């Protein structure tokens, strides 16, 4: 029996000795924790010394005990020490992003008429967008945001574009207001990827989501007011967005004919809703409706002078009612990115005709993070009527893109992308796009 008692005692001793070995992390972790504890203690001593108060070691270490009142002097000292630390997040916060690109096409003529692509050469380097992003907190609920982008143009000239300038005021979770120049909330892509190439998985934007100044189809910027917020909906996670503003879109013809279209927009209304259900984190489903009145004033891109109208056209003063319906389903979680967006752009002639031109467009993109590499595939489709005087340079275009993004670190990404585009009435277009995108 004595043996049994000894055995039990030894078991107890061993269990006591063994348990820490099981629970103890590996040596580097232990050292790290000890270093952290020393830092904690040093910090605590510093705070206590600064307050010149007796140690609070006598405070019982239990969350259930009543809380002693905090002295005003202590609170002031605390706030002062913290303000010093928090100072880093006050003032103007600067961030930036940029890109260096190399693009080669199977034709000696630029597509999108953008980014300094030199006609006559099949491949070119260019710098795309270089952006300076500034934010400043004015009060707990008010802040300013600006995004200044230097766009690479022809002959390595640069154009400054104030992509966003917003005075933001959050009334609460249900109402957040922005006043100034904003990116229209048509669809998911414009919200998620903004202007920075570093944010995007792919090297370029889908054509339908390309900035209007680069030949994209949508009015991507406007000046006015933008409201957004949550709608009480439990686990459905319903949100709304409402915008009223003026855009004055001038988009270059993407066929490279040296012309651009000044849409002379009126004031637009854009209303959208989206869901982020709790049940499937990463899923977002949304829809939006946009309405505006536009023109199709054709300009010579080089001089900005109006070009003569083609015979039989309704003339530069003709107006069209433009509506843009959008719907999307995206899933971004667990390293998977699955984006699907569809658009129907309707240009209805006003006063002079009953003609309505429909331009359907969609893109679908899927990618998966695998360590530092994210391979991706994208398919896009745009079908504009050749009789639509606003998008007749676009026509029918569709095709896949595939490639990979490699993140060198948390700030620099290298992308390689191959594109194949089928075009109505023109030879298929193949492209190689290499990009070094970074943020700082």
């Amino acid at each position, binding site marked *: *029996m004595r043996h*049994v*008692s000894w055995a*039990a*005692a030894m*078991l*107890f001793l061993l*269990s*006591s000795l063994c*348990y820490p070995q099981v*629970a103890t992390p590996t040596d580097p972790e232990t050292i790290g924790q000890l270093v*952290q504890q020393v*830092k*904690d203690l040093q*910090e*605590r001593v510093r*705070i206590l010394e600064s307050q010149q108060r007796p140690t*609070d070691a006598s*405070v019982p*270490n*239990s*969350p259930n*005990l009543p*809380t*002693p009142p*905090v002295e005003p002097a202590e*609170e002031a000292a*605390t*706030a002062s*020490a*913290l303000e010093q*630390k*928090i100072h*880093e*997040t006050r003032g103007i*916060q600067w*961030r930036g*992003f940029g890109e260096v690109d190399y693009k080669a096409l199977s034709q000696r003529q630029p597509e999108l008429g953008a980014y300094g692509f030199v006609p006559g050469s099949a491949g070119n380097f260019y710098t795309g967008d270089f952006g300076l*992003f500034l*934010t400043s907190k004015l009060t*707990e*609920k008010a802040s300013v*945001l600006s*995004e200044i982008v230097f766009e690479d143009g022809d002959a390595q000239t640069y154009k400054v574009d104030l992509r966003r300038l*917003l005075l*933001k005021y*959050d009334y*609460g*979770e249900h109402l957040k207001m922005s006043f100034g120049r904003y990116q229209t909330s048509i669809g998911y892509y414009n*919200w*998620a990827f*903004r202007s*920075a190439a570093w*944010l995007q998985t792919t090297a370029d934007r889908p054509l339908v989501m390309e900035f209007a100044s680069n030949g994209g189809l949508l009015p991507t910027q406007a000046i006015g007011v933008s409201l957004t917020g949550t709608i009480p909906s439990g686990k459905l996670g319903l949100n709304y967005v409402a915008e009223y503003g003026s855009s004055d879109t001038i988009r270059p013809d993407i066929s490279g004919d040296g012309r651009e279209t000044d849409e002379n927009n009126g004031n637009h209304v854009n209303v959208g809703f989206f869901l982020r259900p*709790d049940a499937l984190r990463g899923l977002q489903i949304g829809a939006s409706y946009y309405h505006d009145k536009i023109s199709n004033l054709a300009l010579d891109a080089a001089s900005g002078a109006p070009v003569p109208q083609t015979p039989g056209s309704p003339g530069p003063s003709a107006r069209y009612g433009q509506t843009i319906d959008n719907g999307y389903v995206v899933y971004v*979680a*667990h390293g998977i990115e699955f984006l699907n967006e569809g658009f129907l752009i309707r240009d209805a002639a006003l006063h002079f005709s009953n003609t309505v031109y429909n331009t359907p467009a969609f893109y679908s993109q899927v990618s998966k993070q695998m360590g530092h590499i994210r391979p991706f595939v994208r398919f896009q489709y745009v079908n504009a009527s050749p009789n639509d005087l606003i998008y007749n340079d676009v026509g029918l275009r569709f095709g896949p893109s595939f490639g990979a993004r490699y993140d060198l670190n*948390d*700030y620099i990404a290298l992308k390689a992308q191959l594109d194949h585009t089928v075009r109505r009435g023109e030879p298929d277009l193949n492209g190689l796009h290499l990009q070094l995108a970074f*943020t700082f």
Partner: protein
Amino acid sequence: MGTRTLLMPLLICLASLVCLQAAAAQAGDVAVVVNDRNPVNTLSSTELREIFAGEKHYWAAGVPIRIFVRGPGTPERNALLKLLGMTESEYKRYWTTQILRGEAQAEPMPLPSNGMQREAVVAYPGAVALVGFQDIKAGMKVLKFEGRKPGEAGYALQGR
């Protein structure tokens, strides 16, 4: 007599194991703490994730949420990354993305110690922080997470 002699050490042994287990569990628990004037008493994992992901900006009473976090390598940071389902690198990139989208002003400020976290929670009415169970001090209001307080069996927010 013989049976009693056998049982006593075994019971002591079992009791000590249970105590050690409980102590170890408490040591790994990370508490969700707020200012003691904050009327909130409990948060679900979804709510806490939304707060620390910067998706939820206000407490129900309309007070702006102010997030405080610890730096990499600490148990509190480990618990945060587990909550968000991110690696340290993904966390950095997530906040850079949020800033460039205009959804956040800055990455939540990492404080060098739990002492500083305590000071921050006391100083700011909308403050919320994750603090190791053993570092809970007066002035911190500990919230229930998924219906449980740190130290209770089944508490889910762990820093190990």
